[in-house]
């Protein structure tokens, strides 16, 4: 279930939040490889953008990073724990505690109010009142939607919905924030605001962040940019 104490000790010393080692994934059991031999290390405070064409496996990589899918080969270590040695419940509990998600399609629950949506990760972590209310309010304030706290998602714009999603992804102060095309559904102004907000909040939480995007503009908000293609993950070579 857990990785060896040595691994953990070593990684903690290096401050690594996530580490991929020789990671491979295929379509189905015997299908063509999506990617092979990926290696990556992400440290606390680091904000990384991964770019790539459609179909190269960006979303698959995100699923593997979050423990939502299993690699065919290699390992994903999150906070020093090897996910391949953990069962689904243990991974879910780890994800609950240490990972935050921002999706392209927002995915806020339509039947909960804005504040209930944001407080959901804290509820799952059984953070008691009044701390839960306090942290939710702080997060709403931080993303600039305090005034919408009692509203339902159907009454809000796309930019506002994405702010809820960012607040929900960060409210429990995760070590790792995974953002999958978070500005894909937004206008340029809202997109710029969202990206800035995401970066600020990831840095403020002293966690690490991975931004998956097609957009070079979006990727430029990250500390470094990697490109995923048939050969693996490589640093972006600027054409400029």
């Amino acid at each position: 279930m857990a990785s060896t104490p040595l691994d953990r000790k070593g990684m903690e010393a290096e401050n690594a939040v996530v580490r991929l080692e020789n990671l491979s994934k295929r379509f189905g059991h015997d299908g063509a490889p999506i990617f092979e031999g990926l290696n990556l290390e992400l440290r606390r405070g680091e904000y990384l953008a991964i770019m790539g064409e459609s179909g190269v496996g960006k979303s698959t990589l995100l699923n593997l990073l979050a423990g939502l899918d299993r690699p065919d080969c290699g390992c994903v270590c999150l906070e020093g724990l090897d996910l391949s040695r953990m069962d689904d419940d243990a991974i879910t509990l780890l994800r609950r505690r240490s990972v935050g998600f921002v999706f392209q399609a927002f995915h806020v629950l339509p039947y909960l109010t804005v504040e209930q949506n944001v407080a959901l990760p804290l509820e799952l972590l059984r953070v008691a009142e009044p701390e839960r209310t306090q942290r939710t309010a702080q997060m709403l304030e931080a993303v600039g939607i305090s005034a919408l706290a009692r509203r339902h998602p159907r009454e809000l714009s796309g930019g506002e919905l994405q702010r809820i999603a960012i607040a929900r992804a960060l409210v429990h102060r995760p070590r790792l924030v995974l953002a999958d095309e978070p500005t894909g559904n937004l206008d340029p102004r809202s997109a710029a605001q969202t990206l800035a907000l995401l970066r600020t909040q990831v840095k403020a939480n002293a966690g690490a962040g991975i931004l998956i995007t097609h957009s070079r503009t979006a990727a430029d908000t990250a500390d470094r940019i990697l490109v995923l293609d048939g050969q693996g993950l490589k640093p972006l070579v600027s054409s400029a």
Partner: protein
Amino acid sequence: MNRSVQPGVSWTIWRVLLLSQWREQPVRLSVTVLAIALGVALGAAVHLINAVALGEFSAAAKRLVGEPDLVVRGPREGFKEDLFVTLARDPAVHLASPVLELEVALPGQRDTLKVLGLDPFRAAALQPALIGDMAGGVLDLLRPDGIYLSASAAQRLHLKHGDQLPIMVGDSPKSLRVVGILSEEAYGQALGIMDIASAQWVFDKIGRVNRIDLRLESGTDVDSLRERLPAGVLAVAPEVERQRAVTATRAYRVNLNMLALVALLTGAFLVFSTQSLSVLRRRASLGLLRALGVTRSQLQLALIGEGAALGLVGSLAGILLGLMCASVVLQWVAGDLGNVQLHTAGSALHTAKATLRAAPLNLLVFLAIGTTVATLGAWLPARTAARQPPARSLKGGDADYTVFAARSWRIGVALLAAGALLTTLPAVGGLPVFGYAAIAALLFGAVLLMPVLWIKILKIAPRIDVTVADTAIAQLRENIGLSTLSLASVIVSFSLMVAMAIMVYSFRASFEQWLGKLLPADLQMREPLGNDTAYWSPADQARLAAVPGVARIEFRRTRQLLLDAAHPPVTLIARNSTGAQIADALPLLRRMQSPLPEGTEPAWISEALGDLYGYKLGDTLALPLGGRTRRFTITGIWRDYARAFGAIVITRTAYVEATGDSSANEGAVWLDGRNTAAAEAALRGCFARPDALEILTSTALRERSLGLFDRAFAITYALEAVAVIIGLVGVSLAASSTALARRAEFGMLRHIGMLRRQVIGMVASEGAVMSLFGVVYGLILGGMLSLVLVYVVNRQSFNWSIDLALPGRQLALLALILIAAAAVTALWSGRTATGQDAVRAVREDW
């Protein structure tokens, strides 16, 4: 909006919408089609069976009675044939034909054989079909022991030309010689025809007839002819006799048709809920169509068309199913459900062709009803969808349903009030029309009131700080449209099942209690029920009473009495006990408090007699006995589940005094020992044909009666079970399709750290909360409906009362099954919807 669109556009939209529906949820739509099919099938089958049975009965009655203008009928034991002479000489009468019509007891058989004693030369003019069929055999009919049998009777009794037919007359076995067999076309029912003089001789009815068929001179005043008839002799038009058969079975037919209607309404409701759910789910797509230029009316037409298509397919399937059912019932299962004519019709019909011939036009009516009902079910959701502004549809959400719920409760309360008022209205033509209307009003009223109660309950539900439960409640609260539609399906089917369960249980409990009261003796013995020829003379009775081991026998004379030409005959029971003993032994509901008027005899009437003839306690009851009208005072009204057309109990002393008939044909036997077998054998030993006597212990009779009761209600249970299964399948399909539609939501919850079992738990909690509410609401509503069934519908349909009894264990079991089914459905839906696809669904756009 531009209305000048090409005519093919609506068709294209409809085709795209419906085909996508079929592809998306074939099982759900199939269940909806099945529900409509069942409703139509049941309605069509009941109608066809009755059409065939009544048609056959009508044809049989026509052949039996022939073509007279008037039929003069007297008591079953007959009247003096002098009346025939008088009528034949009457200037108003063109032709008179005397008939002795008897139900003849056959040794060792429970069924009797109807025998007509005719004057073949007179009858030839009035019954050409019967007599014509004998052709040259008429002379054989004049043999003193000769009898012609119908093909059906010959087949039933396994007899052929020249065989001997054993019969019972009094307590003596006799035999007749089969001198010919009528063709199948001549007469469908089991029947024997004899020469009237031979019949009078053989059946010990010399000088007596009980029917005279008359052809009148034109312009005859029938009323003045009627006035010339003696007491107890009635002149009836043949069509009244035929109509009597129709009336006699009407309550059963209407109740079966109501069951069909319930199934059909369940189908319509499923169409409504399927279409409403589908419209809610597709509102963004529908909004898109509107945005792309589809007009409001085109959209509405297309959505109504979906319902109509479902209705048409269901109705066609239903008619085919109904034809098959009717054919099977007529061939194999005839004779149940209190419809005696079915037995006759069933034995006469062999192929589905006859069924098909019965009512082709009416089948088209059923097709139209099924399609219309389904179309109406689709109308409201179609209208709602078409009226929705496209911008709001595209936005999604379910908030406008809350507005609908807030409005609907007023209509709900109004319907509930109307339902309560309707229960107070009397029957129309012997049918509980307002009772059924009350049930419909209460049902729809309760369904319309439900959303607002559901919203209120969800609003006051406190947060319990358990994420799974709180999120489940929040989901239900926000998606009120989806949850109320699913709930309505549960409530409609469950409440109807509860109502029927309470009604049948109450009926059974009352029936059992009634049996206990009516069968206090150790043994019951009788001659074949309804026969006119077998009885026990005073000497026989003395022999029976002297049998060793017999402590006491209460002898009874039971016979049929025609009080009114428009009604079937009532049963007169003369009991060999004192008035006080009878009052004590009968299951009396009401008794006269004041003393019996001087010089009058008491009579106790059944509820049905009171209802059908309007008699009350203390009224004078005029009975035609012994050729005179005898007056009795009604001193008690008793409950009787055995004789739907009414029964009268009088003392045997009064009966003998009025008629001079001291014979008996029934007896209740109390033993002074425990050896019932020996006593039974000794009682049988008193007769030359021991097997002619029907003897049963009270326990066996009770068991047999309860068995018959359960069999009669088996079809009700089966239909109810089908209705609930359809309701449950509808609910589970709604749950699973809703869960599938929420895959992305579940995927997101899994992403943020909710365990799979927590997501499933959340879905199960939603199912449990909903089904709990549905069960409680359904129990309350079902309880209300059962009151209408017990006190209004049952009372007005069958003219007998039942006491309300609650089947607590049965209802608890039903409720548990429903909640368990909902939980299992939710668990299954949740498991399906939280698989790996859920994770992928997060990547799809909502």
